[in-house]
């Protein structure tokens, strides 16, 4: 198969912020490009893509619909970026979450963390997805064979120190 990288590889542009809610498909390369290279001081970029799985709780999933309370979600992403700075100084975050209808196999969330060393990049990336699941005002509705259901996970409370400690434990496990 011949591919033309110039035509197919999306490029980072100024209008793609590091923290975003998007209805368009997520592009991990754009997040990585957005982090920049800090003049060569980075030693690692760790990325995470969350995908729509074809099964959940014994149900055959057909597709998901995501919605967000966008202004609060963006503030929450900024808060998570701030927590990252406190815990892993120097690590940098790009985080995009998608909304709307997503088919099986599509990415719902994309995370990229750059840092000087791999250990903090891995830990920080894991921390971010745990915190997104805990406190970002985003919901998914699952459409499966025979019905649909809103998925309800954590009660969002950004000031809950126990939840934050749990996320740190998962990150450093």
């Amino acid at each position: 198969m011949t591919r033309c990288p110039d035509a197919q590889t999306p490029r980072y542009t100024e209008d793609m912020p590091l923290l975003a809610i998007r209805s368009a498909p997520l592009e991990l390369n754009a997040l990585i490009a957005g982090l920049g290279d800090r003049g060569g001081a980075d030693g690692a970029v760790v990325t995470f893509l969350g995908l729509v799985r074809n099964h959940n709780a014994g149900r055959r999933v057909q597709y998901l619909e995501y919605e967000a309370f966008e202004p609060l979600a963006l503030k929450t992403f900024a808060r998570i970026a701030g927590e990252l700075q406190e815990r892993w100084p120097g690590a940098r975050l790009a985080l995009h979450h998608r909304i709307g209808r997503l088919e099986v196999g599509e990415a719902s969330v994309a995370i990229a963390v750059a840092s000087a060393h791999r250990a903090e990049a891995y830990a920080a990336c894991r921390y971010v997805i745990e915190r997104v699941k805990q406190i970002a005002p985003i919901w998914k509705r699952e459409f499966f064979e025979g019905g649909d259901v809103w998925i309800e996970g954590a009660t969002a409370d950004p000031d809950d120190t126990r939840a934050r400690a749990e996320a740190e434990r998962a990150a450093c496990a």
Partner: protein
Amino acid sequence: MRVTVRLFARLRDIAGAAELTRDIAQGATIGSVWRQLAGEYPELGRYERSISSAVNADYARMDQVLSEGDEVAFLPPVSGG
């Protein structure tokens, strides 16, 4: 005074509206708006202990006192990622 109420996900389905306006008394809290809504839509009652709330797109506690024109949001347990 008057506030706007925003509902998300299942809460919106229960109320049949993403946005409502409600007249509230001076000194009313987020919690009192919630109880008023739960009175109108009894199915909301089961979210009593699991909702989060926000005022003007910032997380807020249920005992926060509201002001004229505030936008109050009620959020069921989240499921992003």
